[in-house]
């Protein structure tokens, strides 16, 4: 049924006119208390302040998380890169015969055994470097 029909019916209901006007006259009888206005405005201000604060803290936290997500892999990669560079440098300068001679002099090993030990140590360092690079 359309609103128009209802609106017409609203007016056509007989017998309620006097009651409607009596009720209508009482519309301004109840008033809000005096403290409602300042109370509401202060609550709204506080709520908006809180919302702004939450928003700022949220943005800050998000920024930190994003920075951490973007930055840490690079920092990690940089640190890892330095480690690899240092290790590969050490391997490059690893003198197999010098290390074998040192072992022979210090520990009194047989030169062939010292060479084996030095070679074993070099392979271990290379394996560690390979693991880090992966």
């Amino acid at each position, binding site marked *: *049924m359309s*609103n128009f029909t*209802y*609106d017409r*019916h*609203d007016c056509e*209901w007989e*017998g*309620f006119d*006097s*009651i*409607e006007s*009596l*009720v*209508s*006259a*009482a*519309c*301004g*009888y*109840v*008033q*809000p*208390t005096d403290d*409602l*206005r300042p*109370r*509401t*405005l202060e*609550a*709204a*201000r506080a*709520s*908006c302040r809180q*919302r702004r604060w939450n928003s700022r803290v949220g943005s800050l936290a998000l920024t930190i998380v994003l920075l951490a997500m973007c930055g840490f892999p690079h920092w990690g990669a940089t640190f890892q890169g330095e480690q690899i560079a240092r290790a590969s440098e050490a391997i490059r300068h690893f003198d197999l015969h010098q290390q074998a001679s040192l072992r022979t002099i210090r520990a009194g090993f047989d030169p062939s055994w010292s060479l084996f030990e030095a070679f074993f140590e070099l392979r271990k360092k290379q394996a560690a470097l390979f693991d880090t690079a992966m």
Partner: protein
Amino acid sequence: MGGNCSFSDEVKSCAVRMAESGVAALAGLFDLTSQRLVRYATTITRNQHDAEDAVQAALVQVARQQYRFCQVVHPWSYLLRMVRNEALVIVRRKRRWSFVANLSDLLTRKLVDEVEREESFRAVWSALRALPVEQAEVVVLKIWEEMTFAQIGDILELSAHTVASRYRYAMKKLSGKLAPSVRESVHE
């Protein structure tokens, strides 16, 4: 209905002002709507203090969501619905559905030229409180807010038929309760 449309337009312009200048413009919306909202909420909560809490909560929500409020097509209906929801939340929390016989919680306006009519005003409010809330709120929206049954149906999420039926029942009950006041006003 013309009055209701212009009032709705005024609420709309308040909503636009709030979107432009923020919470500072809430005072304008409060001044425009608070009395209507309080009397509507009072018919639901049956206690003015609770009604004012509901109005405050609704207006704070509006201040928080000022851009959404500005985009609403019928902000006055939207605001009434918000207040209704808040009032129902308070009522559910306090379970104060029982009929409050006296009107001691109401802050009333007593103008000098209306002193003689105060008895009839009190009779109206007492009669409204004696009605079931579902019927009382239809009466308030129909008579005081000058809304059509379809508009009331939108707010209460009911069909216009149901709203009209509730209104009819309410008016029959009010006729019985307010008959002496009506006779007095006719004699005057």
